[in-house]
């Protein structure tokens, strides 16, 4: 397959969620020409759309940056990078004011102040609410990008890999190759700086509450180009993701609503015994109890337990009022009444805490390559506060865009290493069969096998044996996958995307498994049944996957501590 289209820009942003769009605005406002690519249509793909829209910032008079910083570290079990956590706390308020400038609207009280909610782990009320949730946020950022003369948006464009070059003996990211799904052009985008903003990889887990886009290939592209990945074992789970019926699978019901002061419900097993004690335990403890109940055979035939608020002592009226939001109306449209029906739920993958290793300027370990939430890490640690995910998209989005702009100003275009282009075009060409003897449903079968294995062995409860098994299975699937080809179809070759995505998913699974295997302790959302204790003596440090050509190398890294 040959490159059929060439584009050039100062800054290339890969991913048009809240983080990528904010990065694009920062770079463009500083004067760079920017291209933003997104694999689905803008405002119709990505994790941000599914977000409830809670967003943290220390606006409350009794709150402060210091308090936000401390809460973050504590919630993260001490594993958060302190330099990054500091930036997050320091810039949160300003970035929210920026959002208002871009047209995002927040819920305000009768006096016109931001309404602030207080969520578990927040020592002061700190959660603002975006009107229209994640979709409201992305829509306003997308409009601001579309209105900016320096920004070109190319959506329905699947980036397949990064291109590197050489500058004074060092590897530099110089652009990316991708497939324009609308017209089938294999496109080379040359850039002075590249921002990776591809979101998380939670769709690898059979149970997750993310859109199908969350397959994590951006992590693999950065890693292949030589970027270190940090704490890949740190995936945050959410207790109550719907597992049945199939058409509403992946939506979630609020765990928090089960608390006595909200709807006072519980999670029940198949004979109607409650699974959780009251007051409600923190999320990760709740999930261990739920996972255990499911493993002990107390679950439904679909592997779920029952989220139920129908017997709330607070009365049906209160329940109906609380549940009168888009998310529950969506569930309702599937024939389930969340106010009175039992909803089948199980812990599901929700957020990637680890990711591409960045410093405070969002620089990765590869020159010219920057990364910004959710694919970047680790500013949270082993758990995160509610509302820090979206705030991080704005704080680090702006940092990444600005740093990429500065890099673009200070550096010329560097020629891509021809081998790097050739490798990528050959890789894609090798997946396409000109004889059409492709293998029907084989890709989806392999994908299901991988997702089942990730769910079983890298879920809420993990152990050494299972993790080793997962590595083996992911390798086998990658091997089988390498034998598969898809037909030569020019426009919207969805099968090719399925295949390329699955290849990356195998690699992500191996990285998660290896890092989880390495961390021989339990901390936050990483729970090892064979090492159930937190071990600060040996494990108050990051895991690191270092790309070394063909085989990965795994290492650890001390946590950045703020100098007192």
């Amino acid at each position, binding site marked *: 397959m040959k490159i059929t289209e060439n584009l050039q820009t100062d800054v290339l942003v890969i991913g048009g969620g809240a983080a990528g769009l904010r990065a694009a605005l920062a770079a463009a406002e500083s004067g760079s020409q920017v291209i933003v690519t997104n694999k*689905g*249509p803008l*405002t*119709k*793909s*990505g994790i941000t*759309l*599914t977000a409830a829209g809670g967003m943290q910032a220390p606006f409350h008079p009794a709150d402060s940056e210091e308090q936000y910083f401390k809460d973050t570290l504590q919630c993260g079990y001490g594993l958060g990078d302190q330099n990054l956590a500091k930036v997050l706390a320091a810039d949160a308020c300003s970035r929210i004011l920026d959002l208002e400038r871009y047209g995002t609207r927040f819920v305000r009280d009768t006096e016109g102040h931001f309404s602030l909610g207080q969520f578990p782990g927040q020592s002061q009320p700190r959660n603002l609410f975006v009107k*229209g*949730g*994640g*979709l409201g946020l992305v829509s306003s950022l997308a409009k601001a990008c579309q209105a900016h003369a320096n920004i070109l948006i190319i*959506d*329905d464009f699947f980036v397949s890999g990064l291109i590197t070059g050489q500058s004074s003996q060092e590897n530099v990211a110089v652009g990316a190759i991708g497939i324009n*799904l*609308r017209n*089938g052009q294999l496109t080379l985008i040359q850039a002075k700086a590249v921002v990776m903003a591809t979101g998380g990889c939670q769709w690898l887990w059979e149970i997750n*509450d993310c*859109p*199908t*886009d969350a397959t994590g290939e951006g992590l693999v592209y950065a890693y292949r180009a030589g970027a270190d990945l940090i704490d890949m074992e740190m995936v945050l789970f959410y207790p109550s993701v719907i597992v049945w*019926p*199939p*058409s*509403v*699978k*992946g*939506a*979630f019901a609020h765990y928090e609503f089960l608390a006595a002061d909200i709807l006072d419900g519980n999670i029940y097993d198949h004979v109607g015994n409650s699974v959780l004690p009251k007051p409600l335990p923190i999320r990760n403890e709740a999930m261990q109890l739920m996972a255990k109940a499911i493993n002990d055979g107390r679950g439904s035939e679909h592997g779920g337990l029952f989220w139920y608020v129908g017997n709330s002592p607070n009365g049906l009226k209160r329940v109906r009022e609380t549940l009168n939001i*888009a*998310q529950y*109306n*969506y569930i309702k*449209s*599937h*024939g389930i009444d969340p106010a009175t029906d039992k909803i089948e739920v199980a812990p599901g993958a929700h957020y990637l805490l680890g990711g591409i290793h960045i410093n405070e300027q969002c620089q990765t370990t590869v020159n010219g390559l920057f990364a910004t939430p959710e694919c970047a890490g680790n500013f949270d640690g082993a758990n995160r506060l509610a509302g820090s995910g979206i705030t991080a998209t704005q704080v680090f989005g702006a940092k990444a865009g600005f740093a990429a702009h500065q890099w673009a100003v200070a550096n010329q275009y560097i020629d891509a290493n021809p081998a790097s282009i050739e490798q990528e075009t050959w890789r894609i060409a090798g997946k396409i069969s000109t004889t059409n003897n492709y293998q*029907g*449903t084989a*890709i*989806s079968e392999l994908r299901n096998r991988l997702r089942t294995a990730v769910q079983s062995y890298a879920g809420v409860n993990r152990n050494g044996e299972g993790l080793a098994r997962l590595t083996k299975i992911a390798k086998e699937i990658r091997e089988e996958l390498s034998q598969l080809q*898809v*037909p030569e*179809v*020019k*426009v*919207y070759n*969805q*099968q090719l995307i*399925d295949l390329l995505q699955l290849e990356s998913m195998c690699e992500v699974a191996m990285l998660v498994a290896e890092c989880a295997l390495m961390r021989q302790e339990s901390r936050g959302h990483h729970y090892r049944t064979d090492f159930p204790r937190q071990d600060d003596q040996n494990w108050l440090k990051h895991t690191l996957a270092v790309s070394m050509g063909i085989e990965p190398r795994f290492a650890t890294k001390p946590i950045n501590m703020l100098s007192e």
Partner: protein
Amino acid sequence: MTESNQIISVKAYRFEPANQVKPYFQNFEVKCSEPISIMALLAKIHEIDPSFACRTSTCFKGKCGSCLIRVNGQDVLGCTTLVNPGESIVVEPYSKFKVIRDVVVDFREPLSAAKE
């Protein structure tokens, strides 16, 4: 329950942009024991026949429009429109945008009538 109650019959719009072949309909029988959203149904068809293209990304809220589609002659949101086992339906691309392939449309290209 009889077998036919476990099946949804779908007449799905197929369009291959490169070949200039006229659009045609293909019949699929999808095994299903529960009511299912059109969006989940299309994802199942893509699994049965991977050459059938459809969008799969969802917002879980019925708000983003990634799932817009035409069912039995009406434009609807595919993620909140249910179909029951035993039913037969006709699925076509959402009518207001240009078709890219099969039922995937280009949200950047409204058809002229929709532009006003």
